[in-house]
């Protein structure tokens, strides 16, 4: 083996493999079994003989009797024989290695090629295998196949001929084309000393490149279905050489197989992979069918779910990926047919349904022929406002029990008193029944004037004093759904003195008796729930407001206006639609499926502001968020436990990180008590509630000891509002960390609120409300069942008896000044008594599309001023 000293590899003329000089000169170069001295001797002998041959050739003097090359040949043969003899002798003498040029068994390949240093494995023509550092160039230029496959004898003959035609060394007039077979390749061994060698290209039988090893390994993983590992190998090859042979095909194959396999479990991912393949190689065998089938399934699912926008988008993608495919044509037809069927139905439907059917057709396929014109015509006849709401009204009637039913009640009924402002009390405000209001007997009597000329929606008669008297009396009757315990305690008697006047006698003077008149009035001829049975129409709520109730299903409420004349609402129909979650409701607004969104999640406000097609409004009173406690749960009577629960909540973090997604400010801020910051009953000297989880844990341990040591398990009920969805799991986790197990129970908002107001039992409940009249609202704010009948034992649900008694004192306050003093005391003492766990207050927003005109930017309730709103027809079209 040729050793390379520090000056660089020795460049020895390669012994010509002719005349019986076997190629094992190359073998010998790599044969590590030959001792160093022997190699030198042999090679020196060869060199000398070669030199003599050259000299002989150069001088053209040949010994007599020999042909010009004969002497050289004979010398070489002699040298060869002596070399063989010496080698044989050395190998027998040496305890290691054999002269037998048996191939060195290759070391096993590393288990994980990714972790190993790159290497190539070269196999020499004698079969020996060596692991070397990656060779260069890569791959090595291929040898002429003919040359490569020559036998030793052929090599010898070729060498002889080459010798004959050999030009003088360094003959400047002869430029011989370099024989690639004779090119040397520098290799660096992985192991052993020395490491650096050069090898003739022709001596290399085969090179197994590291990249090919990786590809092969990747192929194995691919075959096994381990796509990730296969991908890793291919990726490494790509990193080493993006153009490596075979890499592209393998990547394509990986994309196809992995994408096809993923379609079953993760269709979107599978499609993505196949789409990537389509971008690389659109004509990959089987790809178009695979894509088409997969897209078709997704399109079907979107179609079934009514998500036509997504379905159409998928259809466009399918048509791009597999143009003209039968699945694409079939899917398109499905959309078209549905849209057309709805169009046809709409043509025969009554005007009230036509708009909805055409809107649905537009949602399905907005490009249907004739759709736009039909929709516009129908819409102009019945302008319809679609509203995305958190919850539809469960019980529609004159006695609202939830925010949803309260919202709808304002559309169905005229309130006795619209608001507690001066124009309303004087009877000058529109949209109310009260025309005059007079206090009698030092506040223990009220005389109310009733507006005439308002007719009930069933056409039976005009609204009169008996309806007002009935409504006021019903609210004092425990059997009525509208029962209010405080009103029942206050009301002595009510009398309709004539058609247009009602007199009310109270048991005592009350600080603001007019507050009790801000409520809807139902018909006296209705049942207790305000519904009337009529022939041919069944039972329905009868009202006197600008809208009539049309129908209520699980997630849609329809309201309709039949008014005519210049003052009739321009929005003739209202469709309230409940979406499964706040995000889908917001997206419905963005898509244009709805024109008005009741509640914009706080973290989406910026998106609304950026969208030119949307407008943002706010409610004038911030909503106060809190966790209500039921004192009928014995554990929650324990003061230490309540304090622990309060201290376990990191209000600032939750508000800023989970609700607002921006820092708190003056309006959106952490609460220190039950009332809104800055309100006239918010005591300024109350210290903020602390976040001290370590102390909370100690308090829980102390509370448990007081209660006998049993584990504390509570339920936390919450509505699907964006704030509650964001924070309740985190609050439950905080409680768990301090030793209180909490089970989360989600409930529709209407169901939750109606149950709590009725005095139903619970443990913890997330609540949010916008208290406009804190003196009147304080009781239900702190004790959910405050106004429930006695049979519900709801007063006992007050977690703090002290606060309960203050609330009762507040109810009995004869005038506003003393009431305010008591309310401030409630605010101060609530910090330590913790009848509820205050959280924060947030400014609530609503949003509408530009096709709706009329909503004000700041309102008290969602439909404020709806009789003056206008809505134009609009539906979203697909990008062309």
């Amino acid at each position, binding site marked *: 083996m040729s050793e390379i000293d520090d000056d660089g590899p020795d460049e020895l003329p390669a012994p010509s493999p002719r005349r019986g000089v076997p190629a094992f000169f190359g073998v010998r170069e790599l044969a590590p079994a030959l001792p160093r001295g022997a190699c030198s001797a042999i090679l020196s002998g060869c060199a000398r003989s070669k030199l003599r041959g050259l000299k002989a050739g150069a001088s053209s003097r040949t010994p007599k009797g020999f042909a010009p090359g004969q002497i050289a040949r004979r010398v070489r043969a002699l040298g060869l024989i002596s070399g063989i003899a010496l080698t044989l002798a050395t190998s027998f003498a040496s305890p290691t290695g054999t002269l037998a040029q048996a191939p060195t068994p290759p070391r096993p390949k590393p288990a994980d090629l990714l972790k190993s240093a790159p290497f190539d494995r070269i196999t020499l023509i004698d079969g020996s295998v060596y692991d070397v550092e990656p060779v260069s160039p890569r791959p090595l230029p291929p040898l002429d196949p003919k040359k490569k496959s020559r036998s030793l004898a052929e090599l010898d003959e070729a060498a002889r001929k080459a010798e004959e035609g050999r030009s003088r060394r360094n003959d400047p007039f002869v430029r011989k084309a370099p024989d690639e077979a004779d090119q040397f390749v520098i290799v660096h061994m992985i192991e052993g000393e020395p490491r650096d060698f050069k090898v003739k290209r022709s001596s290399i039988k085969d090179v197994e490149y590291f990249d090919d090893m990786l590809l092969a390994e990747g192929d194995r993983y691919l075959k096994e279905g381990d796509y990730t590992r296969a991908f890793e190998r291919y990726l490494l090859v790509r990193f080493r050489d993006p153009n490596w042979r075979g890499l592209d095909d393998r990547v394509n194959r990986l994309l196809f197989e992995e994408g096809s396999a993923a379609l079953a479990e993760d269709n979107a991912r599978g499609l993505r992979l196949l789409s990537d393949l389509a971008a690389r190689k659109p004509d990959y065998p089987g790809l178009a069918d695979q894509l088409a089938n997969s897209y078709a399934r997704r399109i079907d699912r979107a179609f079934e779910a009514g998500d036509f926008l997504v379905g159409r988008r998928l259809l466009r993608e399918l048509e791009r990926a597999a143009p003209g495919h039968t699945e694409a044509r079939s899917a398109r037809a499905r959309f078209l047919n549905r849209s057309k069927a709805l169009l046809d139905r709409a043509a025969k439907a009554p005007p009230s349904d036509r708009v909805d059917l055409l809107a649905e057709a537009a949602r399905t396929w907005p490009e249907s022929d004739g759709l736009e014109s039909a929709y516009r015509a129908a819409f102009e006849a019945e302008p319809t406002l679609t509203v995305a709401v958190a919850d539809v009204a469960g019980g529609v009637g004159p006695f609202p029990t939830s925010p949803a039913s309260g919202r709808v009640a304002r559309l169905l009924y005229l309130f006795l008193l619209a608001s507690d402002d001066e124009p309303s009390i004087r009877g000058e405000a529109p949209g109310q029944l009260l025309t005059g209001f007079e206090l009698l007997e030092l506040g223990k009597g009220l005389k109310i004037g009733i507006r005439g000329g308002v007719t009930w929606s069933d056409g039976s008669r005009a609204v009169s004093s008996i309806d007002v008297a009935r409504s006021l009396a019903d609210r004092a009757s425990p059997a009525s759904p509208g029962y209010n*315990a*405080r009103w029942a*305690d206050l009301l002595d008697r009510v009398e309709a003195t004539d058609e247009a006047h009602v007199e009310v006698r109270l048991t005592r003077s009350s600080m603001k008796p007019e507050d009790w008149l801000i409520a809807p009035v139902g018909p006296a001829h209705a049942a207790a729930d305000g519904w009337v049975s009529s022939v041919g129409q069944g039972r329905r709520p009868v009202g006197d407001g600008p809208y009539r109730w049309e129908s209520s299903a699980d997630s849609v409420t329809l309201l309709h206006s039949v008014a005519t004349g210049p003052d009739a609402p321009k929005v003739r129909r209202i469709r309230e639609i409940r979406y499964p979650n706040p995000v889908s409701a917001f997206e419905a607004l963005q898509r244009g499926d709805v024109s008005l969104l009741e509640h914009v999640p706080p973290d989406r406000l910026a998106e609304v502001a950026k969208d030119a097609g949307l407008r943002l409004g706010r409610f004038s009173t911030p909503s106060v968020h809190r966790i209500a406690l039921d004192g009928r749960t014995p554990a929650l009577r324990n*003061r230490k436990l309540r*304090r622990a629960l309060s201290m376990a909540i990191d209000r600032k973090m939750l508000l800023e990180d989970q609700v607002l997604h921006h820092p708190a400010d003056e309006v959106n801020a952490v609460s220190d008590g039950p009332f809104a910051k800055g309100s006239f009953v918010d005591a300024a000297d109350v210290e903020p509630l602390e976040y*001290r989880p*370590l*102390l909370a844990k*100690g*308090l829980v341990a102390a509370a448990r000891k007081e209660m006998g040591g049993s584990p504390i398990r509570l339920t936390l009920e919450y509505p699907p509002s964006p704030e509650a969805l964001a924070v309740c799991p985190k609050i439950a986790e905080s409680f768990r960390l301090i030793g209180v197990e909490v089970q989360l129970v989600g409930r529709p908002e209407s169901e939750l609120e109606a149950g709590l107001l009725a005095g139903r039992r619970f443990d913890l409940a997330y609540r949010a409300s916008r208290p406009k009249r804190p003196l009147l609202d304080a009781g239900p704010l702190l004790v959910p069942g405050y106004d429930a009948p*006695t049979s519900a*034992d709801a*007063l*006992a649900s*007050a977690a*703090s*008896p*002290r606060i*309960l*008694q203050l*609330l*009762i*004192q507040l109810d*009995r306050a004869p005038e506003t000044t003393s009431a305010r003093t008591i309310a401030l*005391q409630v605010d101060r*003492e609530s*910090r*330590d*008594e913790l009848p509820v766990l205050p959280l924060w207050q947030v400014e609530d927003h609503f949003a509408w599309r530009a096709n709706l005109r009329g909503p004000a930017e700041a309102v008290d309730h969602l439909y404020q001023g709806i009789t003056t709103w206008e809505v134009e027809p609009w539906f979203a079209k697909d990008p062309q």
Partner: protein
Amino acid sequence: MTRLAVSALTFLALSAAFARPQVPKSDPIDLKTYAIRVLLDFDPGTRIDAAGRSAVLDDWRELTARFVGEPWAIEIVADLGPLPAIPIADLKAGDLKPASGKADKVWAIRVRPRKSGFALEGRELDVSTGWLGEVQSRDVAHPSDLPRDLLRLALAMFAPSAEVGESKAGGVSFRVQGGALPVASPLGEVAPVGSIFRALRVFPKDDGSTPEIVEVRYSYFRVERREGAIARCEIIRGLGDPLTNRYARKNRLVALGIKPASMPTRLRFLLKGDRLPAAGYRLIGRSIPPGPRPEELGMTDREGRIVLAPGFAEGLVSLRLLAGNEEPIVDLPVMPGETPDERTIIIEPRPLTLALEARLDALRDGIIDVIASRSRFEARMKARLDGEDWAGLDEAIREFRKLTPRESFEKRLDQIRADGERQEAESKTLVLTRNARAQLDETKGLIDRYLDDDAIRSYEDAAQRAKAERARPKVPEKGARKAAR
């Protein structure tokens, strides 16, 4: 002649004396049997025929003889009068009076059918006072159990009578009718230890008509021990002195036994002054004699009312009305179901006391928080000291000193106390009630016991010493000094 006249006169006198009819000597009350007339009405729906009824009654009488014996002399009355037509709960004393005759008690009992078995209801009329007891009831699972359950009903209905004797040392002696008679078994004992009596004041009418009977409310007598026929009783005082005799009219005090009845107990609390309902007040009850712990019974509604279900207690119970979180407003003993009528009690609301106690509760919360923080810091300081981590110790001391100091709490506590005293002086009403004072003292004790600064001062001293030690220049060792020379 004179001798003859004297003899004749003597003879006449003696004759007159002998001619006076013999007045039988009456038994003392403790030897007097209870003559009991029983009106037992079997509802036709029970389907018990005459023979069956007779058998039941015979068995029952046998049981009464076996278990009660002499104290009861039972007479079954055949003529039920108006009883069958009147629900037991609606009976009046006048309905049963005609059937009383010379008896001491009249028992009106009805047997009626239930879904399975029978229901027994009964009331007792005490003839001498005209007092009609409350409805007692029992359910009977099987006809064969009738006699036994009738006995139990009788024992529940039976209210022993007693003469009120002298009161001394907080108690009073009763002479119980039939108390000295032998009983057939302990079950039949008249007025055993633990029995409860109510007091009735009898105002006789000058015209001899039915005297007026007035119940002494909210006061009871509990038999503590028996000394033969005399029952020594503890007075369980509710409102006022039950034994007072400050009455203009002539009257006498009698005692009648009382037991829990199967009826709701209705109470209503009104605030003194404006008589507004005491809404939102908690009611707790404790058995008499005191049981292991008081039990919360409910909360008054907006009308100040609270209804306690039948059987909420097994005997006499002391009810306590709480205002705010823990302030007792009134204590009164009550026998469950003793009357179907609603009892109205006027209470003092004490708003100033409640506000003071709310401040105290908040102060106590703050103290507890600081105590918890201090103990944590003390543990940390100890660890730093043990590990000679002087920087850490200094840091812990600094954090400790940031906590609210003891003086601040003392000042707040003194302020609360002073405010209470001032309010008392100004309003001339009791503000610092016994409970309020106890809470003030307890809070003071909390401060004294747990906010002591000895520990922190010792850590500060240790830190100072260590600091001084570190600041002192190091004196080299003796050997080293020699080497330096």
